[in-house]
């Protein structure tokens, strides 16, 4: 059991949502979402833009009310009642341009109950800690985009929340800052803080998350650990043979696809041993054989569909180009 900095034990679920529905006009933006986020875990909501990630997070936080369904946040179904224990970084970043960096952090803390003087003190210290000490007294409008994003992130953390909700936190960050943010998220989780974030980049979810929810078209077809998602698919076998044809071919599974001397197929339910025996007896001349566990990308394709996966890839590519 992990413990928060202030000594509170991390137990139970930080978030529980059942059958969340949000309708905008004629569109069901979120359509029956169930989520359970264990306290102290890093949880990712993975899906392409427009899948319903932001609306789901807004409903969880009480920014908008669901049309159907229930949700509890840190044990209450009135999320604003526990706003002081929550930190939120929205997808659309925003700060008052004329505020000084340390003051912007303090203001965000003050919104969530931290006394302004304490927020200013912590703001300066946090900026110093993140290499932005010299920017503390600068107005937000004069900061670079990356610096402003860091300021906003620090404002999300300044009141030492138990639950941090980040909407597309990696969006717009270069590789260096993405790595920094990953470290920061891990550090928060190590303190016992629950982190839930949305992303359309599979790699972030795969690297960081203990549990994920895959969302597409407003629905969540999968929620569980990354490992469980990958286990949805059978491992893939890559076989290289000396011989191109022979009686051994009959031993290959029906989905085996040739590519020169290579064969690709799904590992049979019976395992690899009977297949190996048949290949040897049939003199296939095994040059190499590898069994690969499917990645989260493959699992995403299988769970959310090829279209959603294509969209996800395109968005990730676009973002890399922008960064």
């Amino acid at each position, binding site marked *: 059991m992990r413990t928060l900095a202030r000594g509170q034990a991390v137990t139970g679920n930080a978030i529980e949502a059942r059958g969340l529905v949000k309708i905008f006009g004629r569109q069901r933006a979120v359509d029956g979402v169930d989520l359970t986020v264990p306290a102290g875990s890093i949880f990712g909501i993975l899906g392409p833009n*427009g899948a*319903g990630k932001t609306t789901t997070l807004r409903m969880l936080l009480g920014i*908008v009310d669901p049309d159907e369904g229930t949700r509890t946040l840190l044990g209450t179904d009135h999320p604003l009642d526990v706003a002081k224990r929550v930190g939120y970084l929205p997808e659309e970043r925003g700060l008052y341009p004329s505020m000084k960096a340390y003051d912007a952090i303090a203001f965000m803390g003050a919104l969530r109950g931290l006394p302004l003087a304490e927020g200013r003190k912590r703001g300066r210290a946090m900026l110093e800690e993140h290499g932005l000490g010299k920017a503390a007294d600068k107005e937000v409008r004069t900061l670079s985009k990356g610096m402003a994003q860091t300021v906003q992130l620090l404002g999300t953390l300044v009141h030492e929340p138990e639950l941090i909700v980040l909407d597309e936190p990696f969006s717009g960050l270069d590789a260096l800052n993405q790595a920094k943010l990953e470290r920061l998220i891990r550090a928060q989780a190590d303190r016992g803080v629950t982190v839930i974030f949305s992303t359309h980049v599979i790699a972030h979810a795969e690297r960081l998350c203990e549990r994920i929810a895959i969302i597409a078209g407003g629905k969540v077809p999968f929620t569980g650990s990354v490992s469980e998602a990958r286990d949805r698919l059978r491992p893939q076998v890559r076989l290289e043979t000396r011989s191109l044809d022979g009686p051994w071919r009959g031993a290959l599974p029906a989905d085996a696809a040739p590519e020169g001397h290579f064969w690709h197929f799904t590992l049979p339910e019976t395992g690899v041993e009977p297949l190996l025996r048949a290949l040897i007896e049939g003199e296939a001349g095994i040059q190499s054989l590898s069994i690969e566990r499917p990645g989260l990308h493959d699992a995403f394709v299988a769970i959310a569909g090829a279209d959603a996966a294509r969209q996800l890839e395109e968005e990730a590519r676009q973002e890399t180009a922008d960064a």
Partner: protein
Amino acid sequence: MRELLRASWVIARRDFAAIIFSKAFFFFLLGPVFPLAIGVAAGSIGGQVARDIDRPSFALVMAASDSEAALAARTALAEQLGEGRVPMLVAMQSDAPEQLLAATQDTRFLGVLTGSLADPQLIGTAGEIERWQGPLELLVERARKGEAAAPARLATRAVAQSSGSQEQGRLVTAQVGQALLVLLTMLLAGMVLSNLVEEKTNKIIEILAAAVPIDSIFLGKLFAMLAMALIGIACWAGLALIAITLAGNGVPDLPAPATGWPMFLALGVAYFAMAYLLLGSLFLGIGAMATTVREVQTLSMPATMGQLLFFFLASFSVTRLGEPIELFAVAFPFSSPFAMLARAAQEDVLWQHLLALGWQAAWVLLLIRFGARLFRRNVLKSGGGAKRGLIAGLMAKP
């Protein structure tokens, strides 16, 4: 409630500091100076024209020979000093000269010069006596030149303002108060709108909405803007006071309101606050539905026009105290502050103001709650439905 107030305070403190310590606030303070300067210039020209057309007149009630001498002296003095510096005299016959000042009589006379040239008497209100005694003594002295060497001394008799003219005066005070109230309200309440739109442009609004109730965002913004408006008004009032002091007698006196000046001014501030909060909360509701400055302008136009209509309603009912139309203006929240200020000028019953302020405050809270609901429903959403129209937004299920 405590949390709501705490959050409102955080929002208000930020907004207030951001406005007060900005360069724009200095220009905001300067804002009314330009139209005021034009107004003063135009007023001074207009005043000169008015003085030329409508000269101060006194009734002259004396024996025929004395009247003739006084009129001749007036003509001679006017040639030497200028027309504006010597009051007009109108020879009249009356057994009771002070009756000429009664409300039912011709009210164009500022006073009555009566008695004889040897023993002249000036009848009028204390203010007019103080203002015109000197020039009239000069006139009498001139009229009796050759007959008496000593300078003339007018015996004076001050009369109270007639009840009719007092009512008339309070009506003027009521109308001036109303006009000032609507002017300040409309000038300042629009700033709430631009503030909220700025917030949306800065994309701060989601951070606020995730941390505190939207009601407290609206409440905080309203009170920050109200505080800023009151500071602006205090500055302008200070400047006006200096201008009035410098102008001396050049500024006309407003008749004292029924509640007395201190209470009337206190009620004026309270009703300004209510009118401002009512219109501001309505504008916030509109701002909650708009996403661009253009939309704000389009949506706020009917509200501004409506507010003018309510002012006209209150203004129309000012002479109809107790009649249904006036009672409606008092009860209808958007005209209530104006109608009640007019009542403060004309009636000295204080309990009704407590009741009205409570009623108006309840409407402010109701409008804030309504605006907050609209905001949650119409603004923070993603997906294709986000662009639906205002009517669809209003009709949507909560």
